[in-house]
């Protein structure tokens, strides 16, 4: 089943305050937990992934794709969206500082590929990304993402 990006976004938190990268990932994890996508363990696993492998989850300038392996802590596949009030550094050589953290939870290695593809399309589109970063309400973010589906 193909998942649509906007429908897969279970939580949106805009202009949130984070003290550091752990805090920023925690906000993305809290969004997943509140929406019933994951348990709190998944948040710890996302932080542990960066502690183990470094800040490679900062996939593009300003954007972190927080995620961990599929596990029992994932109740269903989904995404959370956190834009930060003030940018935080993840320690990435090229892509710091981060202003957008996307939490990704997947039940297996393939179910979420369509969503990732759509997300990559959004993040590579500079104009759309600029409008998403300027968005101040959840409705605005959702409308912008929906507009992509009809393009």
């Amino acid at each position, binding site marked *: 089943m193909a998942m649509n990006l906007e429908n897969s976004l279970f939580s949106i938190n805009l202009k949130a305050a984070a003290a550091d990268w752990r805090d920023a990932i925690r906000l993305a994890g809290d969004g997943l937990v509140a929406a019933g996508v994951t348990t709190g363990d998944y948040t710890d696993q996302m932080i542990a*992934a960066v502690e*183990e*492998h*470094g*800040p*490679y*989850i900062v*996939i*593009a*300038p300003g*954007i972190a*794709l927080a*995620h*961990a*392996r*599929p596990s029992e802590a994932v109740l269903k596949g989904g995404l959370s969206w956190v834009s930060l009030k003030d940018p935080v550094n993840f320690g990435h*050589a*090229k*892509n710091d500082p981060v202003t957008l953290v996307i939490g*990704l939870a*997947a039940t297996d*290695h393939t179910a*979420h*590929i369509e969503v*990732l*593809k759509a997300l*990559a399309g959004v*993040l*590579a589109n500079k104009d759309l990304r600029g409008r998403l970063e300027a968005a101040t309400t959840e409705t605005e973010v959702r409308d912008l993402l929906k507009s992509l589906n009809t393009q």
Partner: protein
Amino acid sequence: MKIVAVCGMGIGTSVLLKMNAEQVLRDLGVEGDVEAADIGVARGAAQSADIVLTSDELAGEIGEVPAKVIIIDNFVDMDEIKEKLSAAIE
């Protein structure tokens, strides 16, 4: 041409890299097989690959492999992936 896209977990960044690398291969008209792998299986998979795509942080963890290791900074930037991949293929 066998390419392995490597990330820590095998579900996020490597999948993005795999999709974008496949697109680049199509654009270049090059036949190739792109596989996404987490760092654990990547060391093995990289032994039989021609090219490994990964991030700066993970390149060091892969260690010595016969494949050409290409470091990508921006995983959604098709221009960067196209430029680095085509340079490695030629």
